[in-house]
């Protein structure tokens, strides 16, 4: 599903170069549930931006779903983000003036899907995150956990190849975090490919594979045992804490 080869990302290459990513080689298969961990400044955000096609790598090649995206222009990248990637953000990023249903419909607006199809697909996705009773609530009328459920529904609505979740439980209490993570877990079981950035071990423990970044390099790549909720020592002793 995702293949990265020799990915480098350099910020401010002229004046004061910062090597955010250095020679990252990565392969994520369809159906993987990957947690990306690392201390701040380790390059995990940059990796997410490149992986999410919000940014392009300085060098290297990046294939997403069999398409090479590293050389695409901004319109093509917009189309990739629209159809192949579902974003879930730490701060939900719902539009405050729109109700839950319209927020979920938003990605389909840019995909040019007609009104009936939009609302039926949005309802389907909202149903999957258990929010059908809050369709016409605005984000300000919803709790953080409810907002994140709506955001997940929005990420699912164009049937993306991968779901990119950037600290999705960062603003939530532990009970709500568990609820949200169980949604990701069931999406994983349905066969979705998920890449999750987190610095919390117990959140990372839901994943089936953990990528640890340090100083812009992929430091370790650990496949977890099928039984979730056990936290490998590697991560426990890592810089994540």
């Amino acid at each position, binding site marked *: 599903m995702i293949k990265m080869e020799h990915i480098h990302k350099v910020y401010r290459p002229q004046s004061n170069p910062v090597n955010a990513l250095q020679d990252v080689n990565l392969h994520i298969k369809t159906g993987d549930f990957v947690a990306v961990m690392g201390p701040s400044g380790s390059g995990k955000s940059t990796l997410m931006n490149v992986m999410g096609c919000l940014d392009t790598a300085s060098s290297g090649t990046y294939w997403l779903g069999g398409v090479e995206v590293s050389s695409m222009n901004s*319109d093509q990248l*917009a*189309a990739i*983000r629209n*159809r192949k990637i579902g974003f879930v953000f730490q701060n939900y*990023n719902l*539009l405050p*003036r729109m109700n839950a249903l319209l927020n979920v419909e938003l*990605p389909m607006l*840019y995909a040019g899907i007609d009104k009936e199809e939009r609302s039926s697909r949005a309802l389907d996705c909202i149903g999957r995150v258990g929010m059908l009773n809050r369709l016409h609530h605005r984000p300000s009328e919803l709790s953080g956990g409810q907002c994140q459920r709506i955001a997940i529904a929005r990420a699912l609505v164009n049937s993306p190849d991968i779901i990119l979740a950037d600290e999705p439980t960062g603003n939530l209490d532990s009970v709500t975090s568990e609820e949200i993570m169980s949604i990701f877990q069931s999406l994983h079981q349905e066969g979705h490919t998920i890449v999750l950035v987190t610095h919390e071990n117990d959140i990372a423990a839901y994943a089936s594979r953990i990528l640890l970044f340090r100083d812009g390099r992929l430091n370790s790549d650990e496949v977890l045992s099928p039984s979730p909720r056990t936290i490998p020592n590697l991560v426990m002793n890592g810089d994540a804490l």
Partner: protein
Amino acid sequence: MNLTESIRVALDSISSNLLRSILTTLGIMIGIMAVIAVVAVGQGGQQTIMKEMDKFGSNLFQIMLDWRRDEPPTGNEFTMQDLEIIKTNVPELKYLLPCASSYSQIKKGSQTKTAQILGTEADYARLHPLDITAGRFLTNSDCQSRRRVAVIDEEMAQELFPRDNPLGKRILIGNQSLIICGLVKSDSSPLALGTKYVYIPIRVWLDIYPEGNISYIEGSTRNLEDITLAMQNSIKILEKRHRNEDIYQGVDMEQQIKAVNKVTGVMTLVIGIIAGFSLLVGGIGVMNIMLVSVTERTREIGLRMALGARRRDILLQFLIEAVVLCLLGGIIGMVLGIGCAFLIAALAKWPPLISWTTILLAFAFSATIGIIFGILPANQAANMDPIEALRRD
């Protein structure tokens, strides 16, 4: 994203900041309002004047003493003899008649009224569309034999004889007693300003006002093309007879119409320039608020980009918002302008003329301002870096 969605988003964004949006479009509102009101009233006025002139017929001319001269034109006044000589020497003329007018009192018993007393001849009714509602107008024999008769307008008749039939009744003008021989419909046009008229034979008028003189001469020709020639020849005869030059001034209706058009043209230009500045200022206001809006909604822009909005989707969204904002201002301005036009017209007593061209122009203008002043903010929004935009608080 299609157009209706974009417009819906724009309306949503405008309504969520309603007060700010209204204040923003105030400049455009006022500009459009001023244009609509002034154009409507101006065109209404022009139409009224034109209608008034049409009544006289375009082959009519008038010769009067030039009032612009410093010294009063004593000794050069028109005489009845002048008219006779002009008539025989200018073959193009169809009618030529003297007009003498004074604004003075009419008595009936103890009642006193004031009216415009016009001394003229029978042909006056051929040059002006008088509507005789009872009796008859002045006749040639009235005029030749100085018959003491008067034709009054209906409003005057109503005031003097509210219950009786005024025909055959006597009124007193100056020291002369006159018999009412006919009624004409009152001039209801706004330019008449409610003046009441009494028509009497010219010679009778001159008897009543021995100090008075013929105020002006009216004439018309058989053919429209001859009008300037006939007028000039008549003036030449007058100048020769009075041994004076540049003292008689002639106007024909063509000239009058041209003068009116020139005045309205200048007025339209001046208003256009003022409105242009107002709309320019309004447009800058819209640009300013759109820049604020783009900054405020940086996160939204970043999110929309992350969800798949292309740069041109974002550009279009903000451009449409600017256009919708301007159009709303334009529509409100238009409604207010039409209201103002009706108000002014009601006070001025002439109908406002609101043409589709004006309305369409106002629409097009508002939309154009939106596009011109929306480009910069929309472009700024479209060129944002999605990562930076998403990170913004």
